[in-house]
């Protein structure tokens, strides 16, 4: 197997979301050269050892390997059962006069195996790695057909159409044959797209997903995976920050004791560790229809970062107010969100009532280590706003943050009363897309230290 196939495989893996450095690709090639290609399982294992560096990469690796080298096998072995045999139309070499016509007839005369061989050769000359989006497939299959010399056949069909009835009948026959060849070419291109284009498409799609407003986001698949991925990245970033900021004051006693060995010279310094922080985060989410989508993602995000944000208590309200921490500790975020929405959602939010209920339930636990995050649009249905209760809460805790899924310009339009709440919030942000959310959680983690 030439190195080119292997580097294409690496490219396909990158497309499937694996991060592979050129050095690792080099190792994979060395390893493959060492174990040889004859034993499929061992070849597979050698690539896995050099290219798969974490367990979550395993499934995409297996999938890509199967698809890639399956395509490889069918290419090497054209008589495989990939495509049903194609009856070739009766070729009529005698009728061909010009070189183009002869070329067309030669193509028509080829057996299905020869035809597949030809297609494989034509495909090998093309660079499929530049495909990006699914709509490019048509273009690429046309190019593939041209490379095979199908242009001559097209001309031949047109030419025969002009002729006598028997020639026209033959043209019809050729058309059917051509349609089947086209299908086959499209299949070939589709496989190539899955290997090469899908990855770039994925990156593009991820960018789009991050900027789409929450309410449209539910339509997309794999959003969950993206949310988890973003949360993981952020968590690992902050784990590191936490560690470096944990070093505290000089530990004089230990430093002195250690210095006795060196005749009183403090050759090595010891530091006290800061006691672990006692921060607590409380999230209150509006889950009425207008905001529930944002709530869903905020909660998913926060619970996916369990290891850096261990003490999150969450509450939700719409027509009723209730604690939802248990739903999240017992079920996976995806399930829990659904349950909470079923239980509490409704219309007619009353923020004043919510503040009172929250205060009544949690007043004892509100202290200088607590951060309260409120997610809501502040649309109060023209009821009393209850800003004084928020003020009381705000005084007891470290900080209150307000996240609003609507754009800043609409914060006070209609029945929205953000202005009344803003003075009691240390920070208020628009939170309408995954990008916003990531930024908010990032600064939240920074503010907790």
């Amino acid at each position, binding site marked *: 197997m030439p190195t080119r196939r292997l580097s294409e495989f690496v490219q396909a893996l990158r497309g499937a979301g694996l*991060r592979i*450095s050129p*050095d*690792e690709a080099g*190792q994979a090639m*060395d*390893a493959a050269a*060492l*174990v040889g290609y004859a034993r499929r*399982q*061992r070849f597979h*294992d*050698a690539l*896995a*050892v*050099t290219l*798969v*560096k*974490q*367990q979550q990469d*395993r499934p995409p690796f297996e999938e890509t390997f199967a698809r890639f080298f399956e395509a490889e096998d069918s290419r090497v072995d054209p008589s495989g059962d990939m495509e049903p045999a194609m009856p070739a139309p009766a070729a009529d070499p005698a009728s061909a006069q010009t070189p183009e016509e002869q070329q067309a007839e030669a193509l028509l005369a080829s057996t299905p195996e020869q035809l597949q061989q030809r297609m494989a050769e034509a495909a090998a000359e093309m660079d499929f790695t530049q495909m990006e989006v699914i709509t490019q497939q048509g273009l690429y299959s046309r190019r593939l057909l041209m490379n095979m010399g199908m242009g001559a056949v097209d001309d031949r069909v047109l030419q025969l159409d002009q002729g006598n009835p028997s020639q026209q009948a033959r043209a019809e026959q050729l058309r059917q044959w051509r349609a089947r060849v086209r299908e086959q070419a499209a299949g070939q291109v589709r496989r190539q797209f899955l290997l090469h284009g899908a990855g770039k498409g994925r990156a593009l799609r991820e960018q789009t997903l991050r900027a789409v407003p929450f309410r449209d986001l539910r339509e997309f698949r794999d959003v969950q995976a993206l949310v988890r991925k973003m949360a993981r990245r952020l968590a*690992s970033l902050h*784990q*590191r920050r936490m*560690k470096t900021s944990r070093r505290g004051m000089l530990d004089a006693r230990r430093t002195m004791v250690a210095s006795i*060995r*060196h*005749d009183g010279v403090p*050759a090595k310094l010891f530091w006290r560790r800061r006691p672990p922080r006692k921060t607590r985060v409380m999230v209150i989410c509006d889950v009425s229809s207008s905001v529930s989508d944002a709530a869903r993602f905020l909660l998913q995000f926060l619970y996916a970062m369990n290891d850096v944000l261990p003490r999150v208590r969450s509450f939700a309200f719409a027509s009723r107010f209730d604690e939802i921490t248990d739903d999240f500790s017992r079920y996976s975020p995806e399930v829990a969100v659904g349950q909470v929405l079923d239980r509490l959602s409704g219309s007619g939010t009353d923020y004043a009532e919510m503040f009172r209920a929250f205060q009544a339930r949690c007043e004892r636990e509100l202290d200088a280590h607590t951060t309260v995050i409120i997610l809501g649009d502040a649309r109060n249905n023209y009821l009393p706003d209850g800003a004084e209760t928020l003020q009381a809460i705000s005084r007891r805790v470290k900080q209150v943050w307000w996240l609003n899924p609507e754009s800043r310009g609409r914060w006070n339009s209609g029945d929205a009363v953000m202005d009344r709440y803003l003075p009691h919030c240390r920070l208020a942000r628009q939170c309408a897309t995954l990008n916003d959310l990531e930024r908010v959680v990032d600064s939240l983690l920074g503010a907790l230290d």
Partner: protein
Amino acid sequence: MKTRIDSVEEITRSFAGQGYICSEQIALAIYLAAQLHKPVLVEGPPGVGKTELAKAAAAFLEAPLIRLQCYEGLDESRALYEWKYGKQLLYTQLLRDKLGGMLADTDSLEASMERLGDLGEAFYSDTFLEPRPLLHALRSDEPAVLLIDEIDKADQEFEAFLLELLSDFQISIPELGTVKAKHQPLVLLTSNDQRELSDALKRRCLHLYIPYPAAELEAQIVATRVPDLDARLREQLVAFIQHLREQDMKKLPAISETLDWARALVLLHADSLEHAQVADTLNLVLKTEQDVTLARELLPAWLRKLGKR
């Protein structure tokens, strides 16, 4: 150290000879590591034989095994080298008179300084250097197997410090310059996945994940390590352990626990899991009270199902 490895099968055979039964993937990883001169990062749940693998590899390669156990707060002075401060102090005390005599005929401070400067090198020489595992591995006269155990327990800074060693088999020491390995050691790192290791580290290593063994492999391991165990009981035991691993346990039983249990059953002269005392030995396999209780409830039901089959 053995320099020529003919095939993956040779490794599997040698390991089996030492009582370390492994899947082909594991042998392949060792083969590639030795041939490509790359470190291997071995991950997997605790108790699947990650450390044993290093020992088996050392025995197979006929190389000494140098082990560095990682823990939180591990730093270069413990892992790489340390100056013997005490010895340096002692020497200066003992040599005080001698030094005084040497400096006696100098007339100015500058001249004394200069003469001392010539001597200075002597105090930062090999005599006062205390090599730690990493330096041992680099300076070893024969190629060694270096086991860096539980790298996930060390700090992230230490991980970064290892990068130079892992990619170039060399380490820079400010006072001595760069120490390059006389012979490239075979480096094995193990991790229990307590925290995510950095991409930079992973990139420099081959990656081997050792899962819990499949029933067949586990039976083979038990047969090799505890040959006295009755064959029928062995099948039963392995099947039950595999069944336990599918449960929602706090700590799943690993191979080491299977072996402990097997040995205990041999001592009890048990001939099947129905034996009255078997339930009492479950705490050899499971390490928390909750798990033991759960397993006790599971066992009769599982045996009944087995009986029906």
